[in-house]
């Protein structure tokens, strides 16, 4: 008998046109790991909620979900509360929302043990501490009394995994457990899940949109599309010979590093369009008496040529966004200057002339939040025209808006829609249209595709490439997704804790990186190929505190190549072929990618 047997599961909501989940069958054996992949809206999460008995009260569920031969669908809450988390448990995407902010983590874990009469008192405390140790929380004794907000995202996710596994369930459901985390932390969490699964013989149901995550972590894979199960099989077979067209499309859209760049050949030697010289940004802690200074960006220089794409990569908190916001004049800069076509630009966006402002536009991460919710699509795109050229008549505006919609591949029917009535991809296209209508020379994309599904992401990137070819637009792409970097960029700037680590051409960076941090980022990237050789974890731990950066090279606490000199001396940025690097050992280390 299978551990979990799902048969003809159907979940629907009153008022919805089609069922959220329909006719889904699958099973999980003891100790097995099963991946469910699909884009947003494919019914992955609804399936998981049905299995956990966590569907909202207005959901209609039919079919059967059997755990150990016991029916879960429609089981009374009291019984479900016995099964959770002793037989099954769940790890959610957002650990901050899943932990109680008012109780320290040790007490939250102990409550589970007490409520299920597993242990009390000292015994419970010891069990909690050993579980925290198992999930790799450094110094569990001290962290026992920590509150969720005092932990980093990766540490919170570890605590959540500890709370799911503390009652030793037979089945662990993880719903996008690493989506909100950096790649380096994602690799650590996935490794941890695998290790714990083997140690405790727990079955794992891993839900994700990222085929790279499934490829390295699941024995079998289920592909879902629009509420239906379209393909099921061993992960090896699914990747090698997908049967369903949808699976093929998902695999084709999966991020890969082993492909050539799609961007047009790098522009010939021209004068730089944008020159950023020694720019730095700092914030003051808000406290009585001034507070400490947080140096978000230390002096960094780079240039952007006409028609060139420069990618800026780094973990969250590395200062990528602060850097471009200072370039745009949205944040005051501490030192340095920004030159545009040989002209020095004013500090704030307000002080710049209409003409220079027009040249630099930005596309934001959250497409819906970057559009005014109270405005129609047509007024959103018309606004820049009205501001730039107040004399334009109504007919002229309509024509320009229609042209812009056409340019980004949107139908004119969308003109009267509100942002919340658009899909993520459509909203991002509107945001791009609003930027393009200004006819900028540089478009800055701050994680512009991070919130989008694989296939939609591909289309948006294609649109950007087409625009670049058409009007020799320069792009600055901030991203944590190295596949996007590989596909789009000519040159790459790698940042760590506000410092420049490496600046290199695309081929140089992916072929022979010079900085150990770049190497670690490349190795952390999950590869959508189940047969790829899995490396040991490339990068342990998380960045140090920005308020108290370590002495010497800020990366040395996590660097496998660190020597005594790295702990004392700050590495200077040195010029080298195809770029720059800031590492004491850059010359002697060979970090090339093995063919």
């Amino acid at each position, binding site marked *: 008998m299978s551990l979990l047997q799902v048969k003809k599961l159907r979940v629907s909501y009153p008022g919805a046109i089609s069922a959220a989940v329909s006719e889904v069958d699958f099973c999980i054996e003891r100790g097995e790991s099963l991946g469910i992949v699909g884009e947003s809206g494919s019914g992955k999460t609804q399936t998981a909620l049905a299995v956990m008995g966590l569907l909202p009260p207005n959901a209609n569920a039919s079919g059967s979900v059997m755990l150990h031969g016991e029916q879960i669908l429609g089981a009374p809450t009291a019984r479900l509360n016995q099964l959770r988390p002793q037989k099954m448990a769940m790890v959610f995407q957002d650990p901050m929302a899943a932990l109680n902010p008012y109780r320290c983590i040790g007490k939250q874990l102990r409550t589970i043990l007490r409520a299920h009469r597993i242990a009390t008192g000292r015994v419970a405390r010891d069990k909690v501490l050993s579980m925290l140790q198992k999930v790799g929380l450094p110094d569990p004794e001290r962290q026992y009394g920590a509150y969720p907000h005092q932990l980093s995202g990766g540490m919170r996710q570890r605590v959540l995994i500890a709370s799911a596994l503390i009652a030793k369930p037979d089945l662990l459901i993880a719903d996008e457990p690493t989506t909100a985390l950096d790649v380096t932390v994602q690799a650590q969490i996935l490794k941890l899940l695998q290790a714990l699964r083997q140690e405790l013989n727990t079955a794992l149901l891993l839900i994700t949109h990222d085929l790279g995550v499934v490829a390295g972590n699941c024995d079998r894979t289920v592909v879902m599309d629009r509420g239906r199960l379209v393909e099921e099989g061993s992960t090896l077979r699914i990747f090698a010979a997908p049967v369903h067209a949808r699976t093929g499309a998902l695999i084709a859209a999966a991020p890969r590093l082993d492909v050539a760049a799609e961007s047009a050949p790098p522009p010939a030697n021209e004068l730089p369009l944008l020159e950023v010289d020694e720019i730095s940004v700092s914030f003051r802690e808000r406290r009585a008496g001034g507070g400490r200074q947080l140096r978000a960006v230390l002096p960094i220089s780079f240039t952007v040529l006409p028609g060139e794409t420069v990618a800026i990569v780094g973990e969250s908190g590395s200062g990528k966004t602060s850097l471009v916001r200072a370039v745009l004049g949205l944040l005051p800069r501490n030192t340095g200057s920004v030159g545009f076509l040989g002209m020095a630009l004013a500090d704030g966006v307000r002080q710049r002339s209409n003409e220079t402002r027009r040249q630099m536009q930005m596309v934001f991460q959250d497409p819906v939040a970057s559009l*005014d919710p109270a405005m129609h699509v047509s007024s959103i795109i018309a606004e820049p025209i009205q501001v730039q050229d107040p004399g334009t008549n109504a007919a002229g505006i309509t024509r320009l808006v229609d042209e812009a919609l056409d340019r980004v591949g949107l139908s004119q029917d969308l003109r009267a829609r509100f942002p919340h009535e658009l899909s993520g991809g459509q909203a991002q296209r509107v945001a791009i249209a609003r930027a393009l209508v200004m006819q900028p020379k540089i478009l800055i994309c701050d994680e512009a595709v991070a919130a989008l599904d694989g296939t939609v992401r591909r289309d948006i990137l294609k649109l950007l490439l087409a625009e670049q070819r058409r009007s020799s637009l320069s792009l600055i792409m901030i991203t944590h997704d190295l596949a996007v970097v590989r596909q789009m960029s000519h040159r790459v700037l790698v940042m760590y804790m506000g410092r420049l680590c490496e600046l290199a051409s695309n081929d140089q960076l992916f072929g022979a990186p010079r900085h150990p941090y770049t190497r670690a980022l490349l190795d952390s990237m999950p590869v959508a190929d189940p047969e790829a050789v899995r490396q040991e974890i490339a990068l342990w731990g998380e960045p140090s505190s920005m308020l108290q950066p370590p002495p010497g090279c800020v990366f040395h606490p996590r660097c496998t190549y660190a020597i005594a000199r790295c702990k004392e001396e700050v590495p200077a940025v040195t010029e080298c072929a195809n770029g720059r690097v800031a590492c004491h050992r850059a010359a002697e280390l060979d970090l090339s990618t093995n063919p």
Partner: protein
Amino acid sequence: MSTLVALQQLGSQVRRSRVVLVSGGILLAIGVIALLGPLLSPHSYLDTDLDRRLLAPAFAAARLFGTDDLGRDLFVRTMMGVQVTLLVAVVASIVSLVIGVLYGAIAGFVGGRVDALMMRAVDVLYALPFIFLVILLMVAFERSLFLIFVAIGAINWLDMARIVRGQTLSIKEREFVDAARLIGVSPIGIIFRHITPNLFGVVVVYMTLTIPQAILVESFLSFLGLGIQEPQTSLGALVNGGVSQMEQATWVLLIPAGLLAIILLCFNFLGDGLRDLADPRKQAT
């Protein structure tokens, strides 16, 4: 234009909420009767008739609510009271709306020292004892309806400014405001085009909650004898008059007091209903 759009959005949602429909309907009905009722009655709010003092309500002689201690028709006087009360409430709320929204939006958007200075000014005004202020005003100037508007508006806008400022602080951090700055929209343009329309939901809802507050303050002032002047009247003044007749003629107290209660209840329900509608989590996407 975008304010109009926000209005339309709200309008289409109102149709889906029964609480809003019923309480709004009752308020509208009371308002229409208060306007038209006195015109249809043969009596006037001024005429005293000492032979017909404290008549009980009767349909026959067109004395729907009876008469008061001076023999004046209570129906006409109550309707007039409703008119004055609603007028005070609406005008005072509009005053607080205009001042409060502009003040709060500017303080929130500009931020920094300007914000700190503007909000400390609000704190100082909060600290002044209100009744003391009103009595000073009444002594210094001639009592008039206008003065009551000023007095009530002067306290209501403080709350509105605080709420709008808080809301503005969170809206200005959103990415569409950055997008507008990059396009080159001026700070004033951003406040009018992007911030105020997005404040709309909160402000409308808050207004339906300040209206009952204004009504209560007016009634309270009139009850103390600081408000509206005879022979004009308001619901508060009528209740005050009714209290002295309570032992002989209960209706003189109960009718205006009951109407006041119904109006307050309806505004409160209306505010609750609108607040639920304006909650983005409850909006259909």
